[in-house]
């Protein structure tokens, strides 16, 4: 286990998944396991906690759910967010500042509500401006979801075979984004 210089946990980070993760999995749990649970054996929420390490810092994330297995994207996704949170000033050698923690918070909550249980994990990539983008490059598709300072989130889609490309505002086009991600599985 890496050395930990500081134990850092801010309230926004703690709250990242507290509500949306539970909501996202509740429907899945219900549809799969409802028939197995009698009326007297209602599923119980439990508090869960995981710690992620990056550049000598530790981030602990706590949330409540039904104890179901976490999707495969969960750990790489959160590790990616923690990795951009710990970038030092001038991380790109061109005087970039640190990544805005509020943007990380917003992006985590957003994507947690969009990904399905079997979705492929995106890469979390920092922007010089202090924002970040989530990237998928699979099946000849380039998909980038951009969160930046002072701008409405949007996503960019390109089919590398046909050359078709388009941009869409978020959250207005959430459903389109979800369907594109589903086709990347």
């Amino acid at each position, binding site marked *: 286990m890496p050395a930990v210089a500081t134990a850092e946990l801010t309230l926004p980070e703690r709250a990242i998944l507290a509500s949306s993760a539970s909501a996202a999995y509740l429907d899945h749990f219900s549809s799969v396991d409802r028939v197995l649970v009698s009326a007297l054996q209602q599923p119980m929420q439990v508090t869960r906690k995981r710690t992620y390490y990056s550049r000598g810092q530790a981030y602990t994330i706590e949330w409540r759910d039904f104890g179901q297995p976490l999707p495969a994207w969960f750990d790489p996704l959160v590790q990616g967010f923690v*990795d*951009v949170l710990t*970038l030092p000033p001038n*991380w*790109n*050698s*061109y005087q970039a500042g640190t990544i805005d923690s509020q943007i990380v918070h917003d992006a985590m909550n957003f994507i947690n509500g969009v990904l399905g249980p079997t979705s492929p994990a995106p*890469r979390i*990539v*920092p*922007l*010089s*401006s202090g924002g970040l*983008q989530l*990237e998928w*490059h699979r099946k000849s598709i*380039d998909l*980038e979801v*951009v969160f*930046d300072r002072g701008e409405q989130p949007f996503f*960019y889609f*390109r089919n590398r075979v046909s050359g078709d*490309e388009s*941009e869409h505002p978020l959250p207005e086009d959430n459903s389109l984004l979800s369907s594109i991600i589903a086709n990347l599985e």
Partner: protein
Amino acid sequence: MSDRAFEDDPSIADEERLFRRIPRTWIDWDDDGNAAISSAAFKDEELSINIESVMIRDGRPPADAVRQYPGYGLAAITAAHARSLNQLVARDPIEEEPAHGVVYGQKKRGGIAGKLRDGASWVITPPPNG
């Protein structure tokens, strides 16, 4: 962000190579060790680059652009490629980098940054575990 205005400099030839340092966080290695650059590396409206001919004039090899940045890669695009995407290419020498220049223009929308990236080639490819 700077409010400086730039004009395209016709003394920078279309075939001029423009070098951009690439930190590891902008690189995705596939299972075969091939390094792909994120479009994020080319999204700055005022994109800093090194102009190769100025480095040659000063007797500096391309690797000098990353000499102080261990683990970084170095990618190159041509001035013609940048101009084809409605970018301006200008000299912007600074004290610590006489070869400094700027590729100026909007890149965040319309997939411009990704298309700049598509025209980039590695000059120095960082190792996956470097």
